[in-house]
């Protein structure tokens, strides 16, 4: 097992290198530079702009810049933000808690909704419950998050005035009030993201369950006289979860990406909003670091999915 993990990690190195080359080249070829805001500022003469470009190494050839970046990355130096003039890792670490809190809660919410609903719908296919669940799932994944986000704001913030729609990182309260306030302001973004995830996941869980539920061994289990609950939970679910685990694991990095829009709407200072503002201001080191983190997450979660397979189904060998 540990050998398997080690081997997979070693294989990950060349793929990450490849990804970093592609990312770097694409970013280097992308138009614009981080000093565009200075262009119309009459206080900043063109020579200063040129000096800045030289100082940040923007005039070097691409391969040199890439080697510099790689070398720095090996030494744990993530780079230096052009725009904020601070280290990129500090910038990312500052943004991480908000993202983990919101995305994590959304993912948990999605699982809490999708698994019970999907499983129950599969045990009674084409029943009224199944029809309703299906309808909502279709509506759920047809509506993009930016739309539901705005809808929620209009209903719960503007009309009803129940929830704040600007997310603040420094809630001015202590103890239980702090906890309540943190929950209150996260309700809308978590609901928007979580329900969107839950919709497609419900459909997936349902179909995975239906595939398994028809198999002979399930009939055998029933014939043994086991109760419905035991059959579903112990025999069907465990096997049906294998594709679901893959889906969730592979969706994890995508969720970070999908949160970009939601983070922007609710002003959540997460990684997604950092990425978008860095792209807009052409802050290449930050964009590079964040996208590279996403790439690492994809590789990591693939690995986690593979390891989980082994646990769910011992027949899958990890050689």
């Amino acid at each position, binding site marked *: 097992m540990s050998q398997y993990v080690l081997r997979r990690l070693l294989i990950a190195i060349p793929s990450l290198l490849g990804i970093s080359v592609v990312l770097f080249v694409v970013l280097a070829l992308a138009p614009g530079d981080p000093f565009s805001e200075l262009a119309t500022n009459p*206080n900043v003469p063109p020579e200063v702009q040129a000096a800045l470009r030289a100082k940040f190494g923007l005039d070097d050839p691409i391969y040199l810049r890439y080697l510099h970046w790689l070398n720095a990355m090996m030494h744990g130096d993530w780079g230096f933000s052009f725009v904020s003039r601070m280290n990129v890792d500090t910038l990312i670490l500052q943004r991480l808690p908000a993202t983990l809190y919101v995305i994590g809660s959304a993912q948990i919410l999605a699982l809490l909704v999708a698994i019970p609903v999907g499983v129950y719908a599969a045990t009674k296919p084409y029943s009224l419950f199944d029809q309703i669940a299906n309808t909502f799932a279709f509506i759920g994944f047809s509506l993009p998050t930016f739309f539901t986000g705005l809808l929620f704001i209009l209903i719960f913030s503007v009309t009803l005035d129940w929830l704040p729609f600007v997310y603040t990182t420094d809630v001015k309260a202590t103890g239980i009030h702090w906890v309540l306030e943190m929950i209150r302001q996260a309700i809308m973004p978590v609901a928007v993201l979580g329900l969107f995830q839950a919709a497609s996941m419900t459909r997936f869980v349902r179909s995975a369950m239906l595939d398994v539920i028809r198999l002979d061994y399930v009939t055998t289990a029933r014939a043994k006289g086991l109760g419905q609950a035991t059959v579903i939970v112990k025999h069907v679910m465990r096997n049906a979860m294998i594709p679901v685990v893959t889906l969730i694991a592979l969706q994890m990095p995508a969720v970070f990406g999908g949160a970009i829009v939601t983070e922007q709407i609710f002003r959540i200072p997460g990684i997604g909003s950092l990425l978008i503002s860095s792209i807009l201001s052409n802050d290449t080191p930050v964009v590079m670091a964040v996208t590279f983190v996403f790439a690492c997450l994809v590789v990591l979660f693939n690995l986690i999915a593979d390891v989980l397979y082994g646990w769910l189904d011992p027949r899958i060998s990890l050689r």
Partner: protein
Amino acid sequence: MLDKELRSMIGDVKDGRMDRRAFIKRMAAVGLTAPLANQILALGGVAMAEGAQVYKPTKRGGGGALKLLWWQGPTLLNPHFATGTKDQDGSRLFYEPLACWDPDGNMKLVLAAEIPSLENGGLAADGKSVTWKLKPGVKWHDGKPFTADDVVFNWEYAKDPATSALTIATHRDITVEKVDDLTVRIRFNKPTPFWADAFVGAPNTIIPKHLFADYKGSKSREAPTNLSPVGTGPYKFVEFKPGDLVRGQLNPDYHMPNRPYFDTVEMKGGGDAVSAARAVIQTGEYDFGWNIQVEDDVLLRLEKGGKGKTIYAVGGDTEFIALNFTDPNTEVDGERSSMKTKHPLFSDPAVRKALSMLVDRESVKKAIYGRAGRTTANFLNGPEKFVSKNTSWEFSIEKASKLLDDAGWKPGADGIREKDGKKLKLLYQTSINGPRQKTQAIIKQACQKAGIDVELKSVVASVFFSSDVANPDTYAHFYADLEMFQIPLSQPDPSQHMRRYLSTNVATKENKWQGTNFPRWVNKEYDAAIEAAESEMDPVKRASHYIKANDLMFQDTVFIPVQHRLKVEAAANNLRPIISGWANETDNLHDWYREE
């Protein structure tokens, strides 16, 4: 004549026969008011007025939290590295300049004890130096005293190219010397009519010598205080998350009495202008929203029964369409829009004039800018003393058509006018931005009716405004016939603004398109007017040179001004913010309070 009249008026003010307000009113009548009217008085020997104070609170603090919403949050807090106004705004919460600008363009004292004038000996008669007296007893947030050494240090810090400060242009051509602990003298190379640049306003706030002295030059980026400012301002630094949040708390030792009113200040970043307007005007979650560039219709709807309102400040920002004087479609030595070519259509003045008649400024105002815009015929729209009264504009498709007919541009079979085989087809580019695309559509429609075919193009702002040499889509390359944007007037003086269009500043491949004269318009008379203005100490003559420069641009139709744009902010109904069109939003923050 104007000159004489003005001199006698200045005399009247000096002798007390005319009060300052009446003087400014009279100046308005002849088209010469606002910010620099006061500088005229200063140079004419009357001390510059301190902006009127309307500050009501009678004790420091007790105002609770002030919540500001900047939809683009500050990304750094060192004023010398500020890449945009958002960074200056954030730094200004903690750092202070010697003086700032009030809504009327009057100078307002902050760290200075008095405004320099000829009478108090602050201004040299030859315009080559200015002496500032500093306020005694001012302390940095860490308790160290603020002195002339700090001011001199800021100059040394910023002018050093290794520091790569973005304020270098302000500091490199001046010399700053310490006269005594509370007096500094700034020396200029040449007579400088607008002396209030260095150390004045939010872009030029002062950082402490004792914390930055070790980080001058190439080590500038390592200074820990780049991210945790220690200033002299009304609020002390608490927390900073780039792009997201800046937090400060009341400075109990602040040097102005009864200020600040608020106990804490918070500046939240992120999101977009519309939802920022909503959070301030509609739900009241925030007290103040910055730069609300939102269509007027939307704002009016939000304001109905809302908890806040929009506020406007007049400055000198002009949204314009620039005409290319060179040919964007012919390549000469690897360069389009080369100075070796002439624009095939715009070399006929009638075409330029006709185009200017096809820009329906009133409709643009009604449909797009609303309360945030004013129609204008001038490129230079402020300060008022520099605004020409000799120009006018009209919108008339008939007159434009007649003008083109008379000049020999006859409609062809497809309805598009042509002459000598050249068709009136134009490429019109701008940056991607809602109001700009709508303006493009309005103008395209009018042009079509007059037989001009206009192709619209929009470029992402980060490309359009970039200095990327390799990218042909920047505004400086100008590989189009027309382009539209605005260049902000960042101080109450037009000198930097007008200098851009000297014929020596033409953008070419040779200077990597860093020349600032992007229309590539060359006019000897204009050059002469600008040069004369820059060495002219007599404020009235100086203004007349700039007015002449503006009129030359008008006669040649270099720019078609679309709209004189106002600053738009959103504020809670009970907040009393002080916003100047000549300064950053936070420049007067120490005087903000809430009406109970």
